[in-house]
């Protein structure tokens, strides 16, 4: 039953995803805000899981366990890079949500163009080029990882894995839009947390306990393997550079458009606190789970040729077939959730920012915008599948490279634009170009062997600040009004209420009689009486009319 059973569960899972896509398609046909942001109706659980699942990708299931298998405890520095995600929740998310509501922007380029009054569309063009190039690279890398997992676990050919997985992901993305993507990401996020929680526990039990694992690894690899200093028992200069490099990977959280767009899709700013709590617990389980999978995997299966095969190997060897099927589905989920989010963001940029805003001056009908987005999803997806069928050698590093290119283009202007009124359009555009250019240059000709995302992010921030200081900030009344509304504070020193916030508080009020005055309670009762009487009258008159 083993291999066939796992295959059956994976197929059932893929069919389930398609069904979910079809169901969401009915809801998403209401308009482009519904399609791209889920109508801003998604709750904190769905958005939080969706944020985490989409930013994790095959890196979590294939890359990180493989790295822990090779480098031991040093891989745990990846978990420390989660601190950049905390910065998002505590400092950026609410401001992004607030400004996107005030500007009525639904994509990241839309957000930047509205903030900087970019009538020349230079910003949109830079966004479109960077997104299309780097997201296609990223999606290609995920498709390749897809093929590898199919090959190792299910025994089907690499090409079959890439094509089948790719087509299913593309179909449900283009049918359901953000709602489908977020709902499947939610399920995928839960499945991944389950896998990262259960698998290391089973592995450590199999070894004979945590202490026994330590002794075995110490005997095999030396004590340095259990210290987080990259092959040394104490911190060295090389170790410090490696640690900084690992931490810089976390900067991607602050700039990736598929992460930032989720803050724009929040129902209201009050959901951020729940998203943060769910997200950080998920990250700690997933990151430390992945590290412990790699380390326990080395003690159990020391002779694996490719360290990145440790996750699927442990899944198949340690679990009953039905549970292995669920966990493999979770691993596929990690990749699919990144692919679908990336495809949706890239295609929404092409449809909304290029086709609608540039070519049609924002007057394109919403159904046509969605149609263009779907065509773009299909074309980009098919292109990525074609490249993935002939994979490059360094797929993993290309994925990390693409992550840096995207984050350094959008992160610095987004972050500065929500804190500093003086950021100019030319400054922001300079940063959007400097970030990806430094990423590419550092990737091919690194002056120091450090992850390219960090220096590129810093270079982009510096470029924006310097150019903004030497160019004229926007001076029209509309912008001043927008900025005043955006930064307006109440007596508590917090942002004033937006319509979405007022809606939440009014709902709270309606559900809590203690907060109501007698007059309000009576008015509510009268109102209900009137409505029910109205319904009654309507029914009676309908009956009377036959």
């Amino acid at each position, binding site marked *: 039953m083993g291999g066939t059973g796992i295959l059956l569960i994976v197929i059932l899972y893929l069919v389930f995803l398609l069904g979910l896509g079809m169901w969401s398609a009915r809801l998403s046909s209401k308009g482009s805000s519904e399609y791209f942001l889920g109508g801003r109706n998604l709750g904190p659980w769905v958005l939080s899981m969706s944020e985490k699942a989409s930013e994790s990708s095959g890196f979590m299931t294939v890359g990180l366990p493989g790295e822990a298998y090779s480098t031991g*405890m040093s891989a*745990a*520095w990846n*978990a*420390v890079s*989660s*601190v950049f995600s*905390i910065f998002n*929740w*505590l400092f950026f998310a609410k401001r992004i949500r607030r400004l996107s509501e005030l500007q009525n922007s639904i994509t990241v380029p839309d957000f930047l163009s509205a903030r900087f009054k970019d009538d020349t569309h230079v910003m949109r063009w830079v966004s479109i080029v960077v997104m299309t190039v780097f997201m296609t690279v990223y999606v290609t890398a995920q498709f390749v990882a897809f093929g590898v997992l199919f090959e190792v676990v299910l025994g089907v050919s690499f090409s079959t894995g890439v094509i089948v997985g790719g087509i299913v992901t593309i179909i449900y993305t283009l049918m359901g839009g953000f709602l489908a993507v977020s709902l499947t990401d939610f399920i995928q996020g839960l499945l991944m947390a389950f896998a990262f929680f259960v698998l290391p526990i089973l592995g450590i039990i199999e070894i004979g306990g945590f*202490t026994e*694992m*330590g*002794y075995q*690894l*110490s005997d095999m690899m030396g*004590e340095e393997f*259990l*210290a*987080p*200093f990259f092959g040394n*028992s104490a911190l060295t200069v090389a170790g410090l550079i490696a640690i900084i490099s690992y931490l810089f990977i976390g900067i991607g959280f602050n700039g990736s458009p598929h992460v930032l767009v989720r803050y724009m899709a929040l129902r209201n700013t*009050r959901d*951020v*606190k*729940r998203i*943060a*709590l769910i997200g*950080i*617990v998920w*990250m*700690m389980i997933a990151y*430390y789970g992945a590290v412990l999978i790699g380390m326990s995997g080395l003690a159990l299966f020391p002779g694996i040729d490719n360290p990145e095969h440790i996750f699927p190997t442990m899944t198949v060897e340690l679990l009953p077939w039905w549970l292995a099927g669920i966990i493999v589905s979770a691993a596929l989920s990690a990749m699919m959730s990144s692919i679908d989010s990336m495809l949706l963001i890239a295609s929404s940029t092409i449809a909304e920012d290029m086709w609608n805003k540039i070519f049609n001056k924002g007057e394109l009908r919403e159904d046509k915008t969605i149609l263009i987005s779907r065509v773009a999803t299909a074309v980009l997806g098919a292109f990525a599948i074609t490249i993935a069928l002939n994979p490059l050698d360094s797929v993993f590093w290309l994925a990390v490279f693409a992550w840096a290119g995207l984050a350094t283009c959008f992160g610095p202007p987004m972050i500065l634009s929500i804190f500093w009124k003086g950021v100019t359009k030319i400054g922001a555009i300079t940063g959007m170009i400097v970030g990806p250019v430094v990423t590419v240059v550092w990737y091919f000709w690194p002056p120091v062997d450090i992850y390219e995302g960090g220096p590129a992010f810093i270079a982009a921030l510096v470029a924006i600040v310097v150019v903004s200081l030497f160019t004229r900030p926007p001076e029209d009344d509309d912008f001043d009004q927008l900025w005043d509304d955006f930064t307006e504070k*109440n*007596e*508590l020193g*917090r942002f004033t*209420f937006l319509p979405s916030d*007022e809606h939440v*508080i009014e709902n*709270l*009020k309606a559900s809590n009689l203690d*907060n109501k*005055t007698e007059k309000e309670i009576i008015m509510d009762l009268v109102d209900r009486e009137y409505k029910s009487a109205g319904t009654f009258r309507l029914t009676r008159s309908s009956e009377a009319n036959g």
Partner: protein
Amino acid sequence: MDAFPISGWLILILPPILFIGSVVIWYIREVKMEKLENELFYKQKRNEEV
């Protein structure tokens, strides 16, 4: 327990405690501030009605 050096233990234990702890503290602070915000909102509404 002796198999793991102190630095190994620290990186396993400290970041989760610090990260989850800081988010929990922030969460509690947000909830308190939201209660105050609600009161402020009701007060403003009443003033508008008056």
